[in-house]
């Protein structure tokens, strides 16, 4: 069976830098940090971290109440990102409702803030009397996918993969496969998450959250750096429009880049700590899928969240794949870890890098950890030929995934 080639024709982002994929890239290019002190964390004396990357100053009234009533912030972020992506791809209402347009979007879980609200209302008297009808739609596992599909009128297949930090990378991969196999012509895909202190708390309990830079938030997280001390949680949404080259040509819309390959492979060595060999296998399978040799790769955009063990394992895996011949960077230094949104936000940045023929360096990588330095760690932005990018995301639970993105020039 001949697989169809898959184009990226639209992108949309909501990030700690604000609303817009262009705005996201401009902030990354300028080396800005999206991380700030989060006073909400002060109430938890038992937790170390006091920083996060929050989405601020978003006008939620842009979303009609009819749709917003069932949305928690993550769905609002995803909806606004999807609107931007659909507009860039020139998708009108008829295209969205054609049945040939689908949606694949996930989040780590449903809205934790709404779950908290539910139990605050329920537990005092074990009564459901004060529970409003919309709570369920904000906490269900496919809340983001169904809310965005309902609001945009998307009538094709709607899937909601959940794989924590790998979620949106998996979503892009599933969208790619649906189009490659001819099941859909167009798929909006990506992921979203909203911040809750519990997310920071979860990583802190596992000794994997940054707390040494609470008074200098812009200096953390520090992927691959000797002083790195863990993840900084953030929030947002990233959405890409994928479609077959035939569809893009027929609609007369420009191709921004190509999704050339995808792989997902599970690391069963440990539920939390990644090993290099399974990460290598995942990247290699994605390259094989794309028909690309390791020496043809221009850049590996790492998952690298700035945990002690994760960054070392990923560096070793990349060295197994391509030695020190491929420049590697992580965008977590700018963005923090937007969880289910991270893969899509980082993929959007990768598409901009392919278009601009430049690579973004890793923010806060001042002194590379010798245990990571067996690969070419990129500290500064650099202009160069960029044709193929491997985008990694690895999740708790052992869910590894890699995308291969290729530049496209008409």
């Amino acid at each position: 069976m001949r697989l169809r080639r898959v184009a990226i024709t639209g992108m949309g982002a909501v990030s700690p830098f604000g609303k817009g994929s262009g705005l996201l890239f401009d902030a990354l290019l300028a080396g800005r940090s999206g991380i700030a002190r989060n006073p909400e964390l002060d109430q938890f004396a038992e937790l170390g971290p006091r920083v996060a990357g929050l989405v601020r100053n978003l006008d939620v009234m842009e979303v009609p109440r009819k749709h917003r009533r069932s949305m928690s912030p993550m769905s609002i972020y995803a909806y606004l990102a999807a609107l931007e992506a659909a507009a860039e791809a020139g998708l009108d209402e008829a295209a969205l409702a054609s049945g040939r347009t689908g949606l694949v979007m996930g989040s780590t879980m449903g809205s934790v803030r709404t779950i908290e609200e539910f139990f605050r209302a329920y537990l005092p008297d074990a009564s459901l009397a004060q529970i409003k009808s919309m709570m369920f739609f904000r906490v269900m596992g496919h809340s983001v996918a169904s809310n965005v599909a309902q609001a945009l009128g998307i009538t094709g297949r709607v899937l909601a993969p959940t794989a924590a930090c790998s979620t949106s990378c998996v979503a892009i991969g599933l969208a790619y496969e649906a189009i490659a196999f001819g099941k859909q012509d167009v798929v909006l895909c990506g992921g979203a998450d909203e911040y809750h202190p519990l997310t920071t708390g979860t990583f802190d309990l596992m000794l994997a959250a940054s707390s040494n830079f609470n008074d200098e938030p812009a200096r953390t997280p520090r992927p691959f750096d000797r002083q790195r001390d863990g993840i900084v949680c953030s929030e947002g949404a990233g959405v890409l429009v994928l479609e077959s080259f035939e569809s893009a040509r027929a609609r007369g819309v420009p191709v921004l880049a190509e999704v050339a390959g995808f792989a997902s492979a599970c690391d069963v060595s440990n539920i939390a700590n990644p090993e290099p060999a399974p990460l290598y296998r995942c990247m290699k399978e994605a390259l094989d899928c794309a028909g690309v040799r390791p020496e043809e790769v221009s850049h590996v955009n790492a998952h690298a969240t700035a945990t002690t063990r994760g960054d070392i394992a990923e560096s070793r895996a990349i060295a197994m794949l391509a030695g020190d011949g491929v420049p590697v960077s992580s965008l977590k230094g700018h963005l923090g870890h937007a969880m289910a949104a991270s893969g899509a936000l980082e993929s959007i940045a990768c598409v901009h890098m392919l278009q601009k023929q430049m690579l973004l360096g890793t923010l806060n990588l001042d002194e590379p950890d010798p245990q990571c330095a067996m690969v070419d760690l990129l500290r500064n932005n650099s202009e160069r030929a960029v044709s193929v990018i491997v985008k990694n995301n690895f999740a708790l639970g052992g869910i590894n995934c890699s995308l291969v993105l290729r530049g496209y020039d008409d």
Partner: protein
Amino acid sequence: MTDSQVIEAANKALAEEFELEIERMTPDARFREDLDLDSLDAVDMVIVLEKTFQIKIGRDPAILEIRTVGDMHAYIITKKRELEQAR
């Protein structure tokens, strides 16, 4: 609480809950056709009214007959009278 106070409080609470301009809360405005509210909004309306007026509505069959803002006012006014008489 006078009838006009009930009407004012009900309009204010529902306008806030459903993001409606208060001027649209006229007695003849129909919830579904004119105010674009549906059956799920009706569930939340009951919760908001119970909280606003400290009354128990629950699944009172009479609530299903409410079509307009005026019907809702009449329902609350009757309900409050019944409660006062019971006391």
